[in-house]
């Protein structure tokens, strides 16, 4: 409709990997100052296309034009020079460096590494909503803040076209709203965004146009205001939108997980990260934990898994006190664990899929016998997971890194549901998977629940949380502050309870405020 030169034009892009054609004759045109969404199934080739635009991978065929000029990016540095920046689906931050070091790393020539750089970071931080001090170590940040650091990194390098690969997968609705507000503000200033998401409502909320990719090729571009989520989903997969609704309750009165008075302190003299948590999950029950990222969910899960040591309190699995046991013993006792960050905690990226099947199960069949690995058993069971969970892969001998993000997630979920666990700890079990796979994972969890599995579910996706859970507990600043009834609560009610805005609905029952510590205060 406009006669101005598009910000980016990709034409005829083809990219092959061993055994797979990730992109085949893709055409994409992005206008200046728009938010252009990219949708498609897991493994459709979205990330690959964006990595090509960002110079991380070279196309086998096809051309890239930026602002009307044909370009060839050999490295991301070339793309950055042309004003293109990318925030990856899987963050690429160095844990052991500070925020400032991460941002400045590789861009020292811009503002040095000292006070000037810090000043610039603080200026830009406002735009991204990052409130932590640039001197903080990245390993201390939650997922949402890590993402803000990634965006900051891109802005710091002067990008005008910014690629966001599934930025909202890790955010709760309020944070999504904040992010969208940021994007809109920046769009006014002439920034252009390429935005990948599986959440079609979000796409319709923020995008000015949307391109659908299926099996490596562009199906078409649409006006998101004019199509429904259902139509979009059908363009992507030809199937309908799933809903996480659980039908009849399967909750029993047999307690599987009991957490008593659990406390965790990160550093002396600071507010506890976990403050007297009491929690019960019964066989056949899904207990959902609602909360804004960084309010102690990660720590709760890791303490229940034995990755962190509790300062006080007990964790019981059935009648067995597992508080003193290590992670392996807890897994052997029947706990499955879907970690929130599949790259950091879920997978050995360089190892083949079947070796990843062994991780966490190394002491049990069918992948090992005593001290020996059972390679045949591991391979056979990996094939089963690939079939059952529809993991799109050329084979089970490829390295995990070669799978698309959503397919990696399916593999992890399949592994953790293997071996009949009694308790599943699921942190964002459908993070980054497409609508079809989401339905599949939900079904698998529901089926296991019907067989008596107890599930502790953490999710930023409130529809998922409400739809799957039998009970919802709200977590705020390390404490469980309220209960919500999934049958009646709305995402909006839950959202405000999560931010501590107080109960706005009868479906949310706040705990007695007298229990709150008088000393409680903001920040440090």
């Amino acid at each position, binding site marked *: 409709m406009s006669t101005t030169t598009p910000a980016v034009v990709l034409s005829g892009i083809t990219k092959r990997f061993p055994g797979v*054609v990730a992109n085949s004759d893709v055409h994409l045109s992005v206008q200046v100052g728009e938010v252009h969404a990219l949708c498609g199934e897991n493994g459709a080739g979205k990330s690959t296309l964006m990595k090509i635009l960002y110079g991380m991978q070279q196309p086998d065929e096809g051309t890239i034009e930026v602002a009307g000029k044909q370009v060839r990016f050999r490295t991301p540095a070339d793309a950055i020079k042309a004003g293109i920046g990318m925030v990856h689906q899987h963050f690429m931050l160095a844990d052991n460096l500070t925020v400032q070091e991460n941002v400045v790393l590789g861009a020292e020539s811009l503002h040095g590494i000292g006070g000037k750089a810090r000043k610039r970071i603080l200026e830009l931080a406002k735009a991204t909503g990052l409130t932590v001090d640039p001197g903080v170590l990245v390993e201390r940040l939650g997922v949402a803040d890590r993402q803000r650091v990634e965006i900051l990194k891109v802005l710091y390098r002067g990008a005008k076209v910014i690629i966001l690969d599934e930025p909202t997968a890790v955010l709760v609705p309020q944070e999504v709203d904040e992010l969208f507000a940021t994007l809109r503000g920046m769009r006014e200033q002439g920034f252009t965004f390429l935005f990948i998401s599986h959440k079609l409502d979000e796409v319709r909320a923020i995008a000015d146009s949307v391109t659908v990719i299926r099996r490596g090729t562009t199906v078409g571009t649409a006006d998101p205001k004019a199509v429904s989520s259902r139509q979009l989903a059908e363009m992507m997969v030809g199937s309908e939108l799933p809903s996480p609704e659980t039908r009849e309750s399967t909750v029993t009165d047999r307690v599987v997980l009991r957490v008593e008075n659990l406390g965790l302190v990160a550093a002396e003299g600071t507010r506890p990260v976990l403050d007297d948590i009491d929690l019960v999950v019964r066989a056949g029950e899904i207990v959902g934990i609602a909360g804004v990222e960084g309010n102690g969910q990660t720590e709760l899960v890791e303490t229940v898994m034995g*990755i962190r040591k509790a300062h006080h309190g007990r964790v019981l699995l059935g009648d067995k006190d597992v508080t003193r046991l290590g992670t392996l013993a807890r897994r052997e006792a029947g706990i499955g664990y879907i*970690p929130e960050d599949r790259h950091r905690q*879920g997978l*050995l990226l360089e190892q083949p899929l079947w070796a990843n099947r062994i991780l966490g199960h190394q002491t049990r069949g069918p992948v090992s016998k005593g001290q020996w690995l059972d390679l045949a058993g591991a391979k056979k069971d990996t094939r089963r997971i690939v079939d059952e969970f529809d993991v799109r892969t050329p084979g089970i001998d490829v390295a995990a890194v070669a799978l698309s993000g959503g397919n990696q997630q399916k593999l992890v979920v399949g592994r953790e549901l293997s071996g009949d666990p009694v308790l599943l700890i699921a942190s964002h079990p459908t993070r980054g998977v497409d609508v079809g796979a989401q339905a599949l994972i939900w079904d698998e969890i529901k089926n296991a629940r019907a067989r008596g599995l107890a599930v502790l579910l953490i999710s930023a996706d409130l529809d998922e949380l409400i739809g799957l859970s039998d009970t919802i507990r709200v977590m705020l600043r390390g404490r469980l502050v309220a209960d919500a009834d999934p049958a009646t609560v709305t995402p909006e009610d839950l959202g405000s309870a999560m931010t501590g805005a107080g109960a706005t609905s009868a479906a949310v029952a706040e705990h007695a405020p007298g229990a709150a510590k008088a000393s409680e205060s903001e920040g440090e």
Partner: protein
Amino acid sequence: MGILRGKLLPPVLAILFSALLCGIALVVSGANPLRAFGVMLSQVGEGTTAVDIINSTGTYYIAALAVAIGFQMNLFNIGVEGQYRVAAVVAAVVGGSIALPPGLHALVIILTAAVAGALWAAVPAILKVTRGVNEVISTIMMNGLALGLAAYLIGSDVFGELRGNNIRTPEIPESGWVPGISFGSSGTVFGLVFLAALLGVGYWVMMNRTRFGFELRASGESATAAAAGGVNAKKMVLIAMLLSGAIAGLVSMPEILGRDHTYNLNFPAGIGFSGIAIALLGRNHPGGIAFAAVLWAFLDKSGLALDNVQVPREIVTIMQGAIVLSVVVAYEVVRRFELAAQQRQVGRQLGTVDAA
């Protein structure tokens, strides 16, 4: 075939490249590089050189395996040097002071060496696990201590005795010796060279077929994923370090039980450091390490002949250093090249259809 190329091409390129470097160095210093290399090659057929190379390969191989076990989980055991020295003294002292039937005697000495090496490695391991002390620093310091301890233990007022102008531990009685395979005037291959081969097979089995090997590799690749998978990082550090130390303890066994029968002042030094380079060159793979160990031993032993043609023998050290450096570069170059080639090939096979 592609895999073979990816694995073999880099070291070959690296060796050619470093040979080129040394050639240039030789030309600059006024020598004829072709002649020098020729002399080195023909030296293999001279005297005991061939057998010396085999014996030395065995020793290097054990040292490199010890290093490689740590490398698998990004644990840098720089202390192989000290571990094998302490183990050698202790084993020689114990072996020289007990009387046991043949066979059993040697076995006890070998086990003593392994235990001594493991105990010496236990110090940095415990420091790392309990106090978080970096193992690079602690093992280097333990190397210094090992020198001192060994010198003290062989003092004539402790366990040692003076023979001529050499100080040594009491000789191990014949029941503790391990016979070799004699090639007459060409020398004798140490019997325990086969121990090295056995260790190599054991190492492969451990890394590829056992739970421990899997956990070791997982810890090396991603500490966070290993932890979430129930691998106890501290336990792994401890076991890997002890195992590495135990194998390091065996490094000098072929020589002591096969030829010297004592620990003396002429004890070879620096094998632990060569082991680091060899493990790097062999990419922690038992086959790769074997190849690298042979190369190292060849350069060492044949290099001795360079003196005969008035070429400084130090050129060999330069070459060894150059190989390690260039192998790192070569792996990266070949990896990229491979990937591109593979993709072109797949592309041809698949045409441009279907992504599933």
